[in-house]
């Protein structure tokens, strides 16, 4: 309980700091203008989303190895939160691409990889929903969690070579990362910390909820009513 409360407090404090820095401390980008500030949500969302999928992979291996239900609960929570972060990353990315590049979508290697990742872990959640409940769903999901994560670098390679063959017609200034000024770097760092703390808090809450769900399922099974 105390861990969850302190994580909530930490992420709230960091988030407020990050928000204040994004709007009142970081300078406006000379080339990209105000829309560059989306960077401070978009990139942390992407990084933490990727971290979430790494957690899924590690816990999947742990689950198949040790068979501990707790590992599986953590993997489940990480997959769901990872899909949430990746969805928001794709949305904020589109909202940044339009002002920066003049298009909503560009098949850059990062975007292509993220989109496929989103589909992969959406499929992971579907598999958990449709598989026979209990231990079978956990085993299937763990196998997919491992296969999916190993697939990521291969997808990235394919997306990069593919992009070389089919260059996008991008209008306006290309966001080939202009070097960040020190205040921007600091703001970016605080944003990453804030999103990581938020992720940690959501993880504890979602894992706890998952534990409750399983407990209720078992009790219902024993006492048919209610």
């Amino acid at each position, binding site marked *: 309980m105390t861990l969850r409360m302190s994580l909530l407090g930490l992420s709230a404090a960091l988030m407020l700091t990050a928000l204040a820095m994004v709007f009142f401390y970081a300078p406006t980008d000379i080339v990209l203008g105000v829309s560059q500030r989306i960077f401070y949500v978009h990139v942390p969302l992407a990084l933490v989303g990727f971290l979430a999928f790494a957690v899924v992979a590690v816990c999947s291996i742990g689950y198949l190895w040790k068979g501990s239900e707790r590992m599986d609960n953590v993997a489940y929570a990480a997959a769901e939160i990872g899909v949430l972060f990746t969805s928001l990353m794709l949305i904020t990315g589109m909202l940044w691409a339009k002002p920066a590049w003049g298009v909503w979508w560009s098949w850059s290697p990062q975007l292509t990889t993220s989109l*496929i990742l989103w589909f992969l872990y959406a*499929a992971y959640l579907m598999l958990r929903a449709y598989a026979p409940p209990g231990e079978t769903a956990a085993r299937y999901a763990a196998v997919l969690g491992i296969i999916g994560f190993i697939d990521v670098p*291969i997808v990235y390679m394919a997306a990069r070579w593919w992009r070389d063959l089919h260059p996008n017609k991008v209008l306006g200034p290309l966001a080939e990362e202009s070097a960040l000024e020190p205040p921007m770097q600091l703001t970016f760092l605080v944003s990453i910390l804030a999103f990581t703390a938020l992720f940690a808090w959501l993880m504890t809450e979602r894992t706890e909820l998952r534990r409750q769900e399983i407990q209720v399922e078992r009790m219902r099974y024993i006492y048919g009513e209610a």
Partner: protein
Amino acid sequence: MSEQRAPGAPTGASWWAAILAVLWKDLLLESRTREIVTPIVVFSLLVIVIFSFVLDPNPRLIESVAPGALWVAFTFAGILGLNRAFALEKERGGMEGLLLSPVGRDLLYFGKMLGAFLFMLVVEIIMLPAFSAVFNLPLVEPGLWLVIVLATFGFATVGTAFAAMAVNTRAREILLPVLFFPVAAPVIIAAAEATRAVYAGDSFADYSNWVGLIAAFDVIFAVVAAATFEFIVNE
């Protein structure tokens, strides 16, 4: 896992014997019933006809869209074949029989995977001449055949693992493609690009990186899927 193998004989020869026994069972059954290959071939030919209806017959345009059409047809045929193979196995209770046998689950995987690979390959061998004839494309291209064999093997590696899961779920017809496509995306991209290069008359060196990518996918996922197969099929 080793305790599931036939006692006292974990030699290379007996591994092959086990894999081939599983494969042989699938091939024999299929040669008698033809319940997988025949319907999938008919379906695939229909897909080609539909493509020729909807695509502009301009030869220059065909060259740019044909590789995509070919791989869409192949992946759809592959998915349907996998679904059908495992659904039939479940109906007949074949999997229970295999699981009772003292064969290692990794060897069982290789047997099933090679079976799926061969079924898909047979369908593609029948489809490709029809496709080449309809769209007036070259057929005898060793590079193209290499790409097809490697990519089909890649489809079979992950496809077998996912089909074995999907068959036990609700909504299995939709779940298999939903699981399969994102994971197989790099193979589909690589195969389509390599095919495009072949049709454009490029030399092997120009698309060898795509072939290498597919080969890497094949090796990695054959190993990973074999190692995790016991967690999919064991009750």
